[in-house]
């Protein structure tokens, strides 16, 4: 222990003052908070008690000093992890537990194996390293390729204007706003990703005067244009009405363009002209008003009104005589707002697309939820998994030697939240392919292991629920129990039984919990593809509250099964030899039924096809979140107990 090799922290901070340094470093070492990647639930599923190892669990990268990576991360997570690491304040460190550090990071500071003792020891090392080397003369830069992005400048009003340099919009003279290129499809987004890709607006725009000059210029030049434009001979200086010329790509595709009076919406014509009632100029509108609203660019909606595409709309009929507004900087708000989507209360509002995840305190790690928010209501949303297992393997053998044992290990490692179930699934499928009879001797032990994992998994979900609801007691209680249940034998499970059963009564008596969960996450009646607890709960109200009780009931039922059954034992593949054949198996995993069919050739897995409950459930997310308040939407997604690892791709 004392002969630790000197660890150089890559995330050390620039040395500044030397007197306080020692004290501050000590304080830093005593105050380690870690951000767990992919998520605390994975650490728990691996049996790691992070708090007991001396780390405080931080919920945001800003609050963390240690990036704790548990297990191997699939490639897509690498970028997200790099962004997270970049957001952590220095001095910071990477602690890798049981796996390879993603290539996007420049290596870990300390790595350890997947066990509580190793973790505790690694944390101890880390503390010493921090106490010694939190500050250094020459800190290393962290520079990941994902962090690089080209800055481009766009006009808030004319999204088609994209320049490489700052300046004014050639159409309206407004200041161009910086954004990152390609930001409309943020990749590898962390929960704080909006920092990486939004506009600069910290400065005040107090230069109206030169602004005015330029605008005036534009104004003039547009008047020149004006003459060619029959049917638009009003005397206003707006330049919106010329966008049809500027943007040929918009005009032709608008087959459904119609003209209407701004004051009398009942007047609808196919061609421009004046309103028969009031004589105002008709303005263009799309016949199908909100069908194709584009809000892809909305990564940050406080000030993105202008990104709405309103290019093809004419602004007509307002005589501005008598208004001496010196510049044409005046923008018609009607123009801007008329295409905005309407929120539930009928007001046109900005929509804002916010990524939640893949490392978000309220969601399982690896799940990336993209919600389009209108205030704090969700107008639409979708979920994708960044860590999903591949659903099909063809010619697995060619890429690497995949014998039966390796395949089983691969499958159970790919799904850290329910390794036993998938281990059992793989064993059953291979045994069936090999033509082995059902083995009644082992079946009891296997069922025991499966049921034990079901209890542990549901406890993990409860801890996750507590995390989402800010219900600290539940998180603590459920994670403690999960750690105890994980590898318990029949006797110790019997000892835990009272604690598990009182959990239900405690939750029933918790004030506010019922009102929080009731009516949240009700599935549409026609939902198909429901499995597991979600399916069972659908008959009893189908809301988050019903799902909670369904899971608690399953915990009870599993306890009874284990009590009356055999000692739980990890499923082990029986000797299959060099056989060939096809097999199919079904296992009722904690999250619902999973099916695996595979083809075995001379004892090697040739191809397989996996069908899991979560792959179906993730498709429910858009319907579940639509129109919900943000908190309810996240709770609804959480109540499905989606395991992103089990989402097949």
């Amino acid at each position, binding site marked *: 222990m004392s002969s630790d090799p000197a660890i150089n922290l890559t995330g050390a901070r620039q040395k500044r003052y030397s007197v306080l340094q020692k004290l*501050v470093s000590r304080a*830093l070492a005593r105050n380690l908070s870690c951000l767990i990647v992919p998520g605390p639930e994975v650490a728990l599923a691996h049996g790691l008690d992070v708090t007991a190892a001396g780390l*405080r669990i931080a919920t*945001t990268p800003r609050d963390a000093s240690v990036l704790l990576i548990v297990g191997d991360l699939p490639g897509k997570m690498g970028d997200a992890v790099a962004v997270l690491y970049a957001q952590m304040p220095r001095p910071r460190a990477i602690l890798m537990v049981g796996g390879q550090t993603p290539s996007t990071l420049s290596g870990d500071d300390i790595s350890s194996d997947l066990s509580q003792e190793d973790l505790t020891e690694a944390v101890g090392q880390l503390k010493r390293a921090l106490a010694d080397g939190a500050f250094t003369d020459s800190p290393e830069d962290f520079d990941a390729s994902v962090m690089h992005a080209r800055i481009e400048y766009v006009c808030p009003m004319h999204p088609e204007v994209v320049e490489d340099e700052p300046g004014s919009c050639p159409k309206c003279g407004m200041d161009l706003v910086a954004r990152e290129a390609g930001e409309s499809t943020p990749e590898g987004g962390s929960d704080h990703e909006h920092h*990486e890709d939004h506009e600069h607006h910290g400065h005040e725009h107090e230069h109206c005067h030169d602004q005015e000059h330029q605008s005036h210029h534009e104004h003039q030049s547009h008047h020149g244009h004006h003459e060619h434009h029959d049917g638009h001979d009003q005397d206003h200086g707006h330049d919106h009405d010329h966008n049809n010329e500027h943007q040929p790509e918009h005009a032709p595709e608008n087959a459904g363009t119609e003209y209407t009076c701004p004051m009398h919406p009942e007047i609808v014509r196919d061609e421009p002209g004046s309103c028969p009632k009031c004589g105002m100029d008709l303005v263009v509108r799309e016949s199908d008003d909100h069908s194709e609203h584009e809000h892809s660019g909305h990564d940050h909606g406080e000030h993105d009104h202008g990104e709405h595409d309103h290019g093809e709309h004419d602004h007509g009929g307002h005589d501005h005589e008598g208004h001496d507004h010196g510049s044409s900087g005046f923008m018609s708000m009607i123009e801007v707002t008329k295409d905005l989507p309407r929120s539930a209360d009928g007001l046109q509002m900005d929509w804002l697309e916010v990524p939640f995840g893949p490392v978000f305190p*309220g969601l399982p790690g690896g799940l990336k939820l993209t919600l389009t928010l209108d205030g704090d209501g969700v107008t639409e949303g979708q979920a994708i998994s960044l860590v999903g297992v591949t659903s099909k393997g063809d010619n697995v053998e060619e890429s690497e030697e995949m014998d039966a044992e390796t395949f089983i290990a691969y499958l159970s490692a790919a799904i850290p939240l329910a390794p036993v179930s998938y281990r059992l699934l793989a064993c059953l499928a291979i045994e069936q392919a090999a033509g082995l009879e059902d083995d009644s001797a082992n079946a009891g032990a296997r069922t025991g292991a499966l049921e034990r994992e079901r209890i542990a998994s549901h406890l993990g979900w409860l801890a996750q629920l507590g995390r989402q609801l800010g219900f600290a007691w539940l998180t603590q209680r459920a994670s403690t129990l999960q750690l105890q249940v994980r590898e318990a034998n029949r006797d110790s499970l019997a000892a835990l039984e009272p604690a598990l059963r009182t959990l239900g009564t405690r939750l029933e008596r918790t004030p506010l919990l019922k009102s929080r969960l009731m009516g949240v996450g009700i599935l549409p009646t026609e939902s198909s593809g429901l499995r597991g607890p979600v399916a069972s709960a659908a008959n009893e109200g189908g809301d988050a509250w019903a799902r909670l009780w369904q899971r608690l009931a399953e915990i009870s039922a599993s306890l009874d099964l284990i009590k009356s059954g055999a000692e739980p034992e990890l499923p082990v593949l029986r000797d299959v030899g060099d056989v060939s054949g096809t097999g199919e198996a079904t296992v009722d995993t904690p999250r619902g039924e999973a099916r695996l069919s595979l083809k075995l050739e001379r004892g090697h897995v040739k191809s397989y096809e996996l069908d899991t409950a979560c792959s179906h459930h993730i498709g429910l997310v858009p319907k579940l979140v639509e129109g919900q*308040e943000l908190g*309810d939407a996240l709770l609804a997604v959480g109540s499905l107990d989606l395991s992103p690892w089990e989402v097949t791709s």
Partner: protein
Amino acid sequence: MTVAIVLLALLGSAWLLAVIEGWMATGRLSPAAPLFNGLAHLGRESIVPRSPDRVFFEAAPVLLLVVAVLGMAVLPLAPDLIIADLGTGALFINAALAYVLVAVIMAGWGPDGAYAMIGGWRFLGQLIAYSMLIVMPITAVAMRAESLVNTAIVGSQSSLWNIVYQPLGFVLFFIAAMALAFRAPFDLPTAEGELGGGVDAEYTGVRLAVLRLARLTLVVTLASATTVFYLGGWHGPLLPPWAWSLIKTLAVAVSMLLVGRYLPRIREADLMRWCWIMGIPLALVNIIIVGLLILVVP
């Protein structure tokens, strides 16, 4: 001198709360942890988000701290242990606490991040509702004391504490104080599971240290206000007045922290509905009851 003593008491209480907070998070009771925590924050980088509204971003934590301390300045620990015994002390508390809202909105808008912004506006809705429940129970308290002077309010409770005289007011005020301090289960603006930290999320280093200190101080101030308005302030047998004030304040503050641990976060719709539909009418009823009591009981 008085100023120093009151500030020291405030700081000490905040430290105690930090210790208890740490105990709730880790299960270990370590008295030195808050100090090390503060030092560690000083040692960390203080990151400024990419494009903040700099003025708001910097000012918000400081404003929150100032507001909490200002609120404490008009609350008596003992008959003459008060920084400023204003003629309108009970109203001044309201005025100071109203700026908590401003500070949180600034913290929400400042960093230019979606989570923080939603958190800030959420708090606006929350506080417009719950500041009513701060003002109206205090009105009833002032009615009994026939004064807005805080020492007079404590004096009016020498025979019977307000918690007995107007229990409804106490319950409403306690709930509203928790909502104002945005601790769990009212932590909607900072909700970790929903907004990933919300308004707190973008602060690091020294700024975070100030923000945390400000939030703890705010809890102490609100607990102290509860003590002064409802728990008879410094009144109590045997012990000196200041000790009673401190004991009561800390008890209220700790109960505020503990309640959050055993409750899930309130749903935003419920939070609003309960306040507007139940809370405010109940506060009016409380005022009527107290008015009648004052008239009937000599």
